[in-house]
Structure formats: C-alpha cells, structure tokens
C-alpha cells in the first residue's frame, strides 16, 4: 500500500451510519426580481454517496449551491445540512460543510500551510489537531514541498488542491464542490476524483456540479438534472436510463431532458 493510500485511510475514518439525509432541500425557491432562478426544488442526498448536480448554463446550479453553503438566503423553502437548518442554525450547518468553489479563491499571499492553519482556527480546531491535519492534507495532495511557498506561486492545479485541502481541513460531513476538475491536468483530476470517492466511501456526502458529463457518469452514484430552475430528474444512471428509454449515455439523457428535440437531433448529428 503506498503512502498516499495510507494517508487517505487515516484521514477518512468511517462515520457512523446516518439515516437522515445530509442535504435536504425542501420546496427551495429563489427569485431575483421577476426572474425565478430556483423553482421549488425538493432533493435529498445521503451520506456515502457522490451526488452529481447537472444542468445547462443558467439552470440554477450555482444559485442552489450558494443556498446550500449559506451564501444566499432562499426566497422560500428550506435547506438542511446534516440536519441543521441553514437559515436558522447557520453556524452548526456550516461546521458540517466544506465548500470548494469553481475558482480557488485563496489568500494568495499566504502559504498553503498558513492557509490551512487559518481555516483550522476558523473551525476552532485544537492546535495539535491543526498541525496534525495540515501535515496529512499536504501529504495527500502532494503539497509538502510547496507548503511554505506563497500560494500565488502555485499552478492552477496546485491552487485547486490547496482549495480542496482547505475544504477538508475540519473533516466535514458534507463536501460541496463546484466544477472541481476544471483546468486540472489528468493526474491532478484523477487524484481529486480518488479523494472524493474515498471521502464518500467512509460515509460522507459529496455534492458536486460538473459540466463534464463523462466525469459525472463515472464518478457519481446519483445524479440530479436541473433545468430552468427545476429539478427534472434524479436517480442513479440505471434509473435515468429507465426514465429515458433508448438513451444509454448520460449525454443523451441530459440533452433529451434539458434541450428540445432540435438540440437532441443536433447532438445526434454531431456525434
């Protein structure tokens, strides 16, 4: 067993079985002026699964994610994370959540080690726990050597890995990722996919948006497809194939669900 796998096993100890959903969206609705961004979405996602949240541009994915992580207030409906209402108990809900945005959004003048230390303190981790966790995560993401360099000297891939390390610092129950593999080289993308799999296998929930359908198809246990603010399909790949008889790939299912017949035909021609 190599060192990386040993680290993964060490930092992703199995959680106790959790019966209730780790993310529960109930009649979630968000309106900007007269425009409806999220239209009465109901969705449950459980621990131990990688949940893919797909949709075309402007479908309401980012708005939904922002409400899940507490950056936006819903117009109506509720978001519960690990059983806590994000509006009524935001601090408890946020303790259970790790968020990886599509762009790293890191303090570029800090080193990865300083950043992780800062994040650990925000989550009120004990100093010894912080130091231990930093070393684990730097090893996991192959950032040990660059750990004391300023983040602005990192490549995009290294920044994305530092961003993910920051989200995992407090060992959350729920990890929310927005397009995590964008701009990554194949090796880094593979590492991140492995880490997410390992993370969900120990009982946590990975809630991920991606527009790379191939990744979603391979990586996600269940997929939710959103279009024009509405959740139009949820299920495993098998369940989605059942819904759209005759469509075998996620791309076909996605296009037939989110586009009109013209778009589906165009996609067929372009294959």
């Amino acid at each position, binding site marked *: 067993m190599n060192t990386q796998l040993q680290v993964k096993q060490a930092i992703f100890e199995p959680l106790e079985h959790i019966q209730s959903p780790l993310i529960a969206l109930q009649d979630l609705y968000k309106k900007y002026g007269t425009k409806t961004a999220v239209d009465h979405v109901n969705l449950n996602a459980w621990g131990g699964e990688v949940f893919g949240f797909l949709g075309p541009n402007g479908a309401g994915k980012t708005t939904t994610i922002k409400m899940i*992580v*507490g*950056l936006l207030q819903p117009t109506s409906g509720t978001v519960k994370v690990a059983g806590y209402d994000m509006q009524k108990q*935001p*601090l*408890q809900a*946020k*303790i259970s*959540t790790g*968020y990886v*945005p599509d*762009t790293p*959004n*890191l*303090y*570029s*003048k*800090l080193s990865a080690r*300083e950043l992780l230390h*800062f*994040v650990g*303190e*925000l*989550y*009120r981790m004990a100093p010894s726990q912080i130091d231990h966790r930093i070393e684990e995560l730097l090893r996991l993401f192959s950032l040990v050597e660059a750990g004391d360099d*300023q983040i602005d000297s990192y490549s995009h891939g290294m920044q994305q890995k530092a961003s993910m390390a920051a989200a995992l610092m407090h060992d959350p129950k729920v990890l929310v990722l927005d397009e995590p593999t964008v701009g990554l080289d194949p090796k880094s993308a593979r590492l991140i996919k492995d880490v997410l799999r390992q993370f969900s296998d120990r009982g946590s929930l990975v809630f991920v948006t991606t527009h790379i359908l191939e990744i979603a198809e391979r990586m996600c246990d269940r997929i939710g497809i959103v279009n024009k603010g509405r959740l139009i399909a949820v299920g495993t790949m098998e369940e989605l194939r059942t819904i759209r008889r005759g469509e075998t790939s996620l791309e076909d299912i996605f296009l037939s669900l989110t586009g009109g017949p013209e778009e589906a035909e165009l996609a067929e021609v372009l294959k």
Partner: protein
Amino acid sequence: MKKILAITWKDTLVRFDGFSRWLFFLILPIVFTLVLAGGTGSSSDKRVRLVVVDQANSPLSADLVAALENSHSIRPDLMTLAQAETQFSQRSASAVLIIPTGFDLTHLEQGSIPLEMRQQPNNMNAMVAQRAVMSVISRVSSAANIANTSVAKAEQIQAFASAADRQVYFNEALKQAQSLLSAAPSRVTESKGSTKDSIDYNPGANSSAGQLITWVFIPLLGISQLFAVERQKGTLRRLLTTPTRKSTFLLGTIFGQVLTALVQMLLLITFGTFVMKLNWGSQPLALVVMMVSAALAAAALGTTLGTFVKTDSQASGLSVMAGMVMALLGGCWYPLELFPQAVQNIVKILPTTWAMRGMLDIVLRGQGLTSILPVAGVLIGFAVVFFTIGIWRFKYE
C-alpha cells in the same frame, strides 16, 4: 475571540508579505519625520546659521566673529572656504560671509576693507543674515571710525613724532572706543509681550506628530482596500461559508488594522522620544487615549470608504489620496495656523485636524488627559458615525 485573532493574524501575514510593506510601515515615516524636522538632535539655538570663512585670522576678524556670536538673529559657523563653497553650492547654507586676508587694523586705518557676502536667491534666512552682518559690521567699524577720528584730531593739535607713536595712539583710542561702546547704555528697552504666540511650532514635535498621523491614517483608510480585495478575490465569500459570522469578519479585520496602527504609532513615538528627544512620554494616559481614538476614527473612515469602492485599485488610490489630502489640510505637514481662518474652520470636519491637535497638545504643549478629552471625544464621535455608516452600507458580495 479566537476567530477574531485568527483573522487579525491572517491580515497581518497578508499585509506584511514583503520588504516594501515595512518601507511604508516604518522606514518612510521615520525618513519623512527626520526630513521635516530638519534632522535629529537639532540645536536649541534657533538663530539663522551664517557660514563664516575667516581668511584674515586677525584680532579684528576675531572681534567681528565674536560680535556675530552675540547677535540675536544669526549664529556664525566657521569653516574653510572650500567647505563653505560646497555647502553654498548644495544650498545647505543660506549665506556665506568671507572675511578676506588683510582684514586688520592696519588696513582699516588706511581705508575701508570690503567683505564678501554670498546669499542664496529668494531666501529669507539669507536676508536675515545680511541685515545682521550689516548691523554687526556697523558696530565693529564704529570703534575704528572713532579711533581714526581721534588720531586725526590729535594730529591737528600736534603731529606725532613717529609712525609708531601714531599707531600706539590709534590702538589706545580704539581700545577706549570699544570699551565705551560695549558699556554704552542700551537705547532700546526690551520687554516681551504677555500675549501668547498663536502659532505653537517646534519643527521636531510638529514633524513627529504630523508624520505619525499621516502614515497611520493612510493604511487605516486602506481597510477599504482589504474589503475590496476580499470581495474581488472571492475569499470573503469563501470565508463566509465557514462558521464565521459577518460581524466576526468585520471585527477581526478592523481590530487587526487598529492593532497594527497602534504598534506603528508606538514605534514612531519611541523614535521621537529617544532619537529626537521629544516630550511624548510626559502624559502616558493621555497619549494612549489619543492614539486609540485617532486610530478608531481613521479605521471607521476606512470602513465607510470601503463601501464606496468596488476594486482593489480604486480603494488603493482613494485611500492614499484621501489620507494625504486630509493630512495636509489637517495641519500634519504645515502648521494649520498658516492657513486662512476660513480654511481653519472648514478643516474641523476632518479627523486628521483633531488628531493633530490632540497629539500636539501632548508632545508640544505637555497637556494631560483632562485637556485632551474633548479632542478625543470628537475623534470617538467620528468613529461612531463612520462605523455606523460603514457597517450599515457594507456589502459582502
């Protein structure tokens, strides 16, 4: 509290990421303080310095230099011609008086001896030096004139037996004339007015207080830049996905900057006290109250500014410009009393004006807590108003 300290520590790491930050934090403030104070350990002698080159080295030239030493307005500084010319060409000397070879009684008996006076153009100190030199020369030459007149009168009565006798008579006459002139009763009675000078000015104290306020206000106004950077880079958005309240973020950021400003003030005050020998430490409690109230007022203004800017560069430009203008108008670079009365009234709306007044009350006038409390109260008032506006208008996205 742990989170507030974590945010403070993070901001400190981000702020002091290179040498240039230390340049603005400590080095430039000290350099500007020294330049505007005219150097360290400046003499308590406030007379205008006059560079004097004595090429004659005669008793008469020594008398002239001694007379210059006794002047109320100029202070002779003897040096060689080469040194004097270097200083004059570098404009570090306002005026140079050259006493030529042959400036002695023998030559004076035979007629006038021209002295050379070099002056910088359009220089007030040079004009003061010229008038003082003319006055001193007039006094020194009076004795010689009296001696010459005595010799002439004596010759009209009876010619001298020899030139040596004539010289002895001249010397004796000169000695008596000098003695009588020095003992002559003053024709001007001097008395000092009881009305206090409206301009309290000490180059060292004014420079130390003014530069302290300038270089502390600018980074505190730069809180607006911190907010803009956090919003622009998305780090604030990300921070708010952690269990951190918005109020904790604001408190941590502002507390960190105020703490840094207090450390900066303390270092500059320590420099002023030990290197420039300024009286910063006589009223420590009053000083602490002034430091805290000034820092809070500036931080509050920075918080409000942060709600009007959208980008890092806007905030950076605005904070430096606003800081410099407010410092200038607040009397941090020139005594406020030099401005017209209308301007002096208008600038009371600036926190820098009050901060400068309070600091000068301590370092220049030696006033205590009771005296500076009204000024500190005004600054706290600024802080309350600007924090209220800033927090009310603050946007996290």
